[in-house]
């Protein structure tokens, strides 16, 4: 049997290797870019991401929370945190509006500066 470390992706911590396929698309560091991703995605795309990550979210938070908030996160854990941020953005579309945008808001969005 091969050692796990040889085939492991550095994109996510070891316990979250099954979610690595989400990283390129959904680990988005910038808040405004996350919102743009939401309004430019279909509900099917967001539902698939939500269903994959939501059941693992509590475990992910626990993992991230082991790190000192005052220090920069390791890159793999930062990706995991950014996935959670995207989950939050997407969850309002999935759980609340049942559509990508706020109901009746036409094409208005806020530009998030920070």
């Amino acid at each position: 049997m091969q050692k796990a470390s040889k085939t492991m992706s550095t994109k996510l911590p070891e316990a979250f290797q099954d979610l690595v396929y989400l990283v390129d698309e959904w680990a988005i560091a910038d808040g405004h870019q996350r919102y743009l991703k939401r309004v430019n995605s279909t509900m099917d795309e967001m539902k698939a991401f939500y269903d994959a990550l939501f059941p693992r979210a509590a475990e992910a938070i626990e993992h991230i929370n082991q790190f000192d908030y005052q220090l920069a996160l390791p890159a793999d854990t930062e990706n995991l945190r950014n996935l959670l941020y995207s989950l939050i953005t997407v969850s309002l579309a999935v759980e609340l509006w049942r559509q990508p945008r706020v109901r009746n808001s036409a094409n208005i969005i806020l530009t998030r500066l920070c």
Partner: protein
Amino acid sequence: MSQERILMKPESGKWTDAYPHLGRGPISLDDCVSPEFYEKEKQYIFKKNWLYVGRTERLPTIGSYFTRELEILDTSVLVLRDQDNNVHAFHNMCPHRGNKLVWKDDPFVETEGTSSRLYCRFHGWRYDLNGNLIKPSRQDLLLDFEPEKCKVPPIQCEVWNGFIFINLDADNKQTVADFLGDFARGIDGFPFAKYSQTYKFKAELKCNWKIFMDGFAESYHGPYLHAGTFGALSALAKLDAPNPYTDALGYELKGLHRMFSFYGEPSKETPYSLPIEKLLQAGAAGPWNKRVEPVPLPPGLNPTRSETYGFDSFQFFPNFVLIFSASGFTTHAHWPTGPHSHIVEVDMYYHPPSTHQERIAQELTVSYLNDVILEDASPLEGMQAMLNSGAIKEFHANDEEILIRHLHKTVQDYVANAESEQNNEHKTA
């Protein structure tokens, strides 16, 4: 003996009865439609009053600066911190031949940075952080030139509790604190700097600036416009009776300014909580485990001394909104860009998180509020288009819409008074 003053509803049961000069009938909506009125607002209100342009945290060190592109003022404003740690504002232009002084790549995009001098790219003249000319280039070429007459044009600038204000009226004699008046005295000393975690948003909307201010001046729309987001409120609203959640705890008007105090029980799980809220133990009003600040609130906050107090929202004339909540404070600035359009800037100042978990929960609060603000914005562009039709000339405001009545009356009266003063000056001249 000094007795604490508690804000109370008049015995008649109507807030409006406390302000007999406010009127009770329909109100002209011409101030949101007429391009001529917009020009007067610009001339008499925005170019003559103290305006909030940003907090001092944006100027962390000597030489820190930022620019503001403010169409309603017909100028670009440069705000900076000088060698002596004083904050100054200038028209962002070089007094040699008028080149725009500080910008990167696009002269109409706001910028920020740090610099020990102001340098004009056109002919290389240099100015110090007080706007004085250090050195023109090619001094051998100068003709009758008096360097003391060649200064970056200053704008009056003052800081109140970390909020930077400018006033384009060079003849203004009033301090910011005096202008903001009793409301400001009541919140003076709030630990603003403590809330250092910032989230900032902005949007340009195709509606008059006052229409969006109105949306934040009443909570009466809560159960209707936010039916989807605040489920508990909507259930009660069907009763067509006083609503303890959305009827304000108190309204107060002071001169040009106004405020209301609003219900908000500690954020907690309800039958309407979303799965993501349960996961993060937080919602739009902040984390569920939030504790009340141990420090006593300044006397101007929670003016009804209510146990169910949640928010205070102050609207300072003309366009600055300051909202206090258990999460911290939020500012809204509404900058007109035309009679039927404006830019709204929403800056949230929260408790800095101490753990990643807290930061992630805060992300939900901020994302939720982003969507609630969009819900607030959702009727406005359609509404403005219909106001422009001219089919109605007046709007109606009930007792819970007293601040809206006050905003429009204040703006309309201010313009009318300034105009008649101007006309009198012409006559006597």
